[in-house]
């Protein structure tokens, strides 16, 4: 059994409440009342639980799969891990640096070249400029973009976007990699390469969380799969 010292991520009874409406829908009076009373477990009109009592741990070198229908709460879990949002109740503990693979192309600027975007995206996920410079050759080689690396990315195909994004994340020095619904875009060969690279990453002791609808891919890659439905963990498979 793995010991607690190897835990890189722990969700403890996490509840996350979301509102279905914009802020302008809320009344200032309610907000002020809430400021004094604090956030309760009660739901108000127009609110729902995106996560309900979610508890799990992630260990070093582990590759965890998250599986569930759209809107089950998978992305919310990733956001909580990335400290982009915070739990309403409960706690999320992260030991180490997190590197999310931003949706295909989301972190890229269309007018910048592939190489320039490596610098932008790399620093966003926590690399130093120096580190990027020293890894630049490897990243470009992995992306298979070759001569297109100096072309503005607005001229890239979605496959090329993905390859570049994937290459950057796999060369990050984060302890936890978050990969959201992404491997399905690339061609078969590139997918295989990514799978291999991910296995290498977990061997180094990093942890990976993979979100996908593709059960076969998850079974092939992960040590453990968590099933999520309507914000709750409904099953686990080793």
């Amino acid at each position: 059994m793995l010991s607690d010292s190897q835990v890189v991520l722990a969700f403890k009874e996490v509840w996350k409440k979301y509102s279905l409406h914009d802020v302008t829908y809320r009344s200032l009076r309610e907000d002020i009342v809430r400021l004094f009373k604090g956030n309760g477990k009660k739901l108000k009109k127009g609110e729902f639980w995106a996560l309900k009592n979610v508890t799990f741990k992630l260990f070093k070198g582990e590759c965890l799969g998250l599986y569930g229908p759209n809107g089950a709460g998978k992305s919310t879990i990733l956001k909580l891990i990335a400290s982009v949002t915070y739990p309403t109740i409960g706690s999320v503990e992260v030991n180490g640096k997190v590197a999310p693979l931003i949706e295909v192309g989301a972190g890229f600027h269309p007018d910048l070249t592939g190489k320039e975007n490596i610098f932008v995206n790399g620093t966003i996920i926590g690399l130093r400029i120096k580190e990027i410079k020293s890894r630049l050759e490897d990243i470009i080689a992995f992306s298979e973009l070759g001569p297109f690396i100096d072309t503005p990315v607005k001229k890239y195909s979605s496959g090329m976007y993905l390859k570049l994004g994937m290459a950057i994340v796999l060369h990050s020095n984060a302890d936890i990699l978050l990969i959201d619904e992404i491997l399905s875009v690339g061609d078969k060969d590139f997918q295989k390469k990514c799978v291999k690279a991910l296995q290498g990453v977990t061997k180094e002791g990093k942890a990976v969380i993979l979100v996908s609808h593709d059960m076969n891919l998850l079974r092939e890659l992960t040590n453990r799969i968590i099933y999520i439905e309507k914000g709750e963990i409904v099953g686990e498979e080793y």
Partner: protein
Amino acid sequence: MIKRIWHYRDLLIIFAWREFIIRYRQSVIGIIWAIIQPLSMMLLFTFVFSIILQVDLSPIPYPLFFYAGALPWTFFSSSLYYAIPSLTNHYSLITKIYFPREILPLSYVVVALVDFLIASLCLVILIIFYRISITWNSIWFIPLMAILVIFTFSVTMFLSALNVYYRDVRAATGFLVQLWFFVSPVMYSIDKIDIKLKLVLFLNPLTFIIENMRRCILEGREVVWWQFILVTAIVLLLFLLSYRFFEYVEKSFADVI
């Protein structure tokens, strides 16, 4: 906070560098755009006040007088224009990944500062052309610029965060900047203004900053120490308040954006 930004300094550099590249790529005259804005303002005012209105504003040659005012003003207004929507424009980053959010508005202030430095070259040329004698008091320009940067950063932090919640802020930006322009001494000097009105105008920190920048460089006048200390204290206090506010609301950015 400085520690937090220092830790992410590479990101700040890259964001500013990216913005700088994007702004001037696929443009024919490139960074000359940085000079065009204050320059065209100066030309317009010189035309209006020396040919149409023929008002006696200042003993300083008008092109110099207006350019020296337009320079810090352009820095301030362009920071506001770009930085206020900066958080909402980076929706996809804010909902996916953590980094100190204040880096986004700050990077636009940095770019505006670079533009300002480029456009300053034009002021140097004008000074040489009009044979203005420079005194040691010009050094005041540097601390004045420092408080201008801090003040600008505070305003953009507060407004960009508010804009995440209420898009009204963005809609009001153009209007706000326009009004602010008229209460800042860009096309006039507060020298000859009645003392009561002067006190009202001094509620705007830009009044003190812009007026004194012009005085110290073009007229070789000294900045009054107690005024400088008072304004610096006010600007720092505003900065602290605005940063606290930012820190407080930042946690829910991803949920409400």
